[in-house]
């Protein structure tokens, strides 16, 4: 279910050369609630790893355990070969960007960024050049004397980043750093963060509940659900090869169509739905091997809506019940007698069919464009 | 003003001045068609309309004692209940009350200074000597707006357990080496304060007021008071003065003999006093102008308080010296030692000088307040 490269064994094993963080059997309980339930992770040096999940999924608790603000109930955390499970937060040497930035409101930008240097060696040790460099890294060096409340949200976010990086930590923890920003600014900063990651090569551990953010920035994503790892892997893998209904639904949208699978003489499988038998397809090696009842996940963008059936596609007929215009594309709701309601997405101009409510249309998809997933 | 009202006011004046008895006043007022609101239908004496008579004194045990000696006999005679208020009728309070037009006291247990200072200012009802008897009081304490009610003294009072040898003079009170501990004196210059200071400085009893009559003499007194200030707590209520001894904060001081007596009796003699160099004065009954129960009721009360038996009763309970010469003879043997009016005690003390205080009270009081605050 999970990417073998991403998960270490629950027992202590030898650290691989490029592993910087290893989490073993991490568990955190609050009374009867298991916020994090036996999570094990291995993070390679220089990675951009995203912990993705809804609120309450345990992603923040994991991050706070790494940072040292949450004392785990069980398990251990190893950073660069050193067990830091019981090391106080201020001795861990990690950089962190907080949700809402947590800039010191009574200090100027320069003093904020100089803080990690100051606490490591007194006021004298604050090297203005290093502060300026760190600020230059995020294009904020011109505002070094401003107070935080005189900065915009995006600027504050950059200062928080500079502050977390000024002492060259090996790992940077980011706790939903972009959640307070508006949509457009968020997109810009996502891009900049990714650039920055490339430039400095520090390991980023990033927490978010925003799937787009996770998909666009990360090298690796760990999807959490109810304190456990649901699936982890590279963004493309997770998107195209979700293991479960949950992941398929969480990353992007999917139509889920129940059916019954049977092996096909050609080595693939066929699925029989309420509307009839689909064309056979080859099964991916990590795909749930369905026999009997199965769930077919079909992404809206893989559906082509036409007036006549397309060659080599699975096709069912239906009636458009509603159309929403999104600028770049349309979302089309189609009621099909065979599969029930189906959502399709089509490019606004290239759609083969003028999406009019009430029109009778064909819903087409290629045999390989669906995936069997576990129903959980 | 209508002539009818004028006639009524004339009647009222005549009645108030005693030229007309109550019955004829009411009849003739009724003939004018005016029935004064305060008068009920039945024919009780006017003052008996008062719901109650408020007598204000200095609180503590004096409340019960006054009730016993004066209040109950008065109620028996007139049917008017008496309430004893222990707030302490200081001159300032009486003035404030009259100026505020909110007089709630009927008879005040004040002092010489009050009678002299407040009377001319129009703050007091004149004493009605047709009800109150001028003969039943030592003549030096009979004034137009007040009359003496009992003798009392400011005496040297001390804790017998605090010292090896009993102090006898004000000079001893100023001797903080030989007689260690806290001192106390009144927070008002009317308490033999300057007199004690001068005697402590060596001025003879007879020369005290002559000396105080000079600026240098007054300066000397204040110098002595300043000298003792670091050791002194100033009492404002009589109960407070007793409290200071009981809690041990004070071992020696100048307080009223009535309160010394209370201390002595409650402590089986741990505290006591000496009459020597005491400051003798009299309390005075004053009636604030416009008192709620009416002047007549107040005068009746004062008259009741003049009864020799009642005065001896108060001496017995509180130690206040009878001021009615008739009463002095009634004092039983065992109470003579506590009666400041008996010659053997009287002669040891210095009597307040009315002349001095009427001339210098404002000045020295002001200076004293500045000194202690």
């Amino acid at each position, binding site marked *: 279910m999970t990417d073998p490269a991403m998960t270490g064994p629950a027992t202590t094993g030898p650290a691989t050369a490029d592993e910087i963080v290893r989490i073993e059997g991490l568990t955190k309980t609050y009374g009867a609630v298991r916020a994090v339930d036996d999570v094990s992770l291995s993070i390679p040096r220089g990675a951009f790893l995203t912990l993705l999940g809804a609120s309450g999924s345990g992603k923040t608790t994991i991050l706070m355990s790494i940072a040292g*603000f*949450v*004392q785990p109930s069980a398990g251990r955390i190893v950073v660069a070969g050193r067990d830091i499970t019981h090391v*106080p*937060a201020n001795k861990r040497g990690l950089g962190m960007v907080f949700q809402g930035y947590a800039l010191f409101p009574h200090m100027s930008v320069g003093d904020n960024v100089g803080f990690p240097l100051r606490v490591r060696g007194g006021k004298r040790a604050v090297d203005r050049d290093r502060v300026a460099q760190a600020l230059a890294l995020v294009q904020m060096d011109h505002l070094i004397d401003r107070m935080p409340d005189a900065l915009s949200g995006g600027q504050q976010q950059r200062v928080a980043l500079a502050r977390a990086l000024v002492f060259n930590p090996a790992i940077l923890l980011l706790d939903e750093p972009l959640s307070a920003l508006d949509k457009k600014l968020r997109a810009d900063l996502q891009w900049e963060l990714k650039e920055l990651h490339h430039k400095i090569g520090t390991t980023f551990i990033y927490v978010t509940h925003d799937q787009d953010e996770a998909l666009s920035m990360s090298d690796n994503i760990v999807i959490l659900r109810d304190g456990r790892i649901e699936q982890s892997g590279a963004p493309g893998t997770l998107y195209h090869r979700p293991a479960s209904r949950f992941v398929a639904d969480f990353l992007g949208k999917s139509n889920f169509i129940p059916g019954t699978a049977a092996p096909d003489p050609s080595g693939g499988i066929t699925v029989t739905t309420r509307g009839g038998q689909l064309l056979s397809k080859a099964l991916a090696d990590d795909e749930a091997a369905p026999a009997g009842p199965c769930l077919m996940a079909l992404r809206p963008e893989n559906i082509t809506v036409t007036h006549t059936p397309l060659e080599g596609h699975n096709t069912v007929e239906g009636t458009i019940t509603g159309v929403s215009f999104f600028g770049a594309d349309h979302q089309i709701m189609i009621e099909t007698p065979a599969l029930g309601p189906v959502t399709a997405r089509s490019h606004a101009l290239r759609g083969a069919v003028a999406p009019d409510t009430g029109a009778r249309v064909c819903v087409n998809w290629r045999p390989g464009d669906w995936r069997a997933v576990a129903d959980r | 003003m209508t002539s009818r009202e004028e006639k009524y006011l004339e009647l009222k004046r005549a009645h108030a001045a005693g030229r007309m008895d109550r019955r004829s006043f009411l009849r003739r007022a009724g003939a004018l068609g005016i029935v004064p609101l305060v008068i009920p239908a039945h024919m009780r004496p006017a003052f008996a309309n008062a719901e109650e008579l*408020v007598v*204000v004194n200095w*609180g*503590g045990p004096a409340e019960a004692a006054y009730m016993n000696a004066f209040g109950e006999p008065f109620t028996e005679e007139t049917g008017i209940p008496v*309430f004893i*208020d*222990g*707030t302490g009728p200081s001159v300032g309070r009486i003035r404030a*009350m009259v*100026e*505020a*037009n*909110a007089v*709630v*006291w009927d008879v005040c247990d004040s002092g010489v200074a009050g009678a002299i200072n407040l009377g001319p200012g129009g703050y007091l009802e004149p004493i009605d000597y047709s009800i109150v008897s001028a003969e039943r009081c030592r003549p030096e304490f009979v004034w137009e707006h007040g009359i003496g009610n009992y003798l009392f003294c400011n005496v040297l009072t001390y804790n017998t357990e605090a010292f090896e040898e009993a102090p006898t003079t004000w000079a001893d009170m100023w001797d903080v080496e030989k007689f260690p501990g806290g001192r106390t004196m009144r927070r008002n210059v009317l308490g033999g304060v300057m007199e004690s200071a001068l005697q402590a400085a060596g001025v003879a009893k007879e020369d005290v007021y002559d000396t105080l009559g000079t600026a240098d003499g007054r300066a000397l007194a204040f110098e002595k008071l300043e000298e003792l200030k670091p050791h002194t707590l100033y009492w*404002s*209520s009589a*109960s*407070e003065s*007793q*409290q200071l001894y*009981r*809690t041990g904060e004070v071992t020696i001081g100048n307080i009223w003999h009535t309160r010394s007596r209370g201390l002595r009796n409650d402590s089986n003699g741990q505290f006591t006093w000496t009459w020597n160099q005491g400051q003798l004065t009299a309390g005075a009954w004053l009636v604030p102008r416009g008192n709620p129960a009416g002047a007549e009721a107040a005068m009746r009360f004062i008259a009741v308080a003049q009864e020799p038996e009642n005065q001896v009763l108060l001496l017995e309970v509180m130690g206040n010296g009878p001021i009615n010469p008739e009463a002095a003879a009634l004092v039983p043997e065992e109470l003579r030692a506590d009666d400041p009016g008996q010659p053997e005690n009287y002669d040891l003390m210095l009597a307040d000088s009315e002349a001095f205080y009427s001339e210098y009270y404002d000045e020295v009081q002001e200076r004293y307040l500045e000194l202690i605050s």
Partner: protein
Amino acid sequence: MRGRITFTRGLALCAAWTIVAFMVLPMLVVVPVSFTDTYYLSMPQEALSLQHYQNFFQNPRWLTAIWQSTLIALGATAIAVGLGTLCAIGCWRIASGTSDMVRLIMLAPIIVPQIVQALAFYRVWIDFGLIDSYTGVILAHSMIGLPYVVITVSAALSNFDVRLEQAARNLGASMAQTVALVILPRIWPGVASGAVFVFILSFDEIVTVLFITSRRIQTLPKMIWDGIQEHLDPTIAVVAVIFTLVVGVIVVIDQLLRARAAAVAARKP
């Protein structure tokens, strides 16, 4: 987040407990003193005695004082709560510079020193003929209590969605109906909390009472004041114990009210 116990924090906690002990010490000390078997202030010498409790509950002057204080406090509370609540609602809804100014003016009785206001009441109450009267004391106390009602009600209103008021008006309710049917039901815990505050304030007020009353009005604080000044007798310790118990109950009630105020006002429709 609070987990780490460092030396500094441990030290601070110890110090804090010491200071809290200093704060409650005077409340605790009156308890044994009130049970003393002597006639003066002291710890019980040979046995515990209820004599001072008996004295308190049988002395008509103490009982009258309680009654008078209660009556005055109730009157002052009624006036202050009535005026203050309406004023706070008005200012909240008007929400302009002028109404902010009004709210600031309403704070005057908190800012003016007690002795100054006592002198002021005394001076003017003479002219108004209110010296030593229930009306006089009730009026004075209601003025002193007014700002506290304005504050608590304003706080309750700050959590209140102004659109509810707009909706009510839009649906045809008059201002009076809006206040009575929409606003008050949602801010009542704040109003009640203000009422408790004024009640206690009035019940406890001494400085103004010393100036504007003399003989007729004998409130409980006045009795205590005289008692402390004159004969420190253990009956005052009894009063102190009863006061402490009552205040304890009131604090609990008030805290519940405040919690409720926040909950009621913040509850989404």
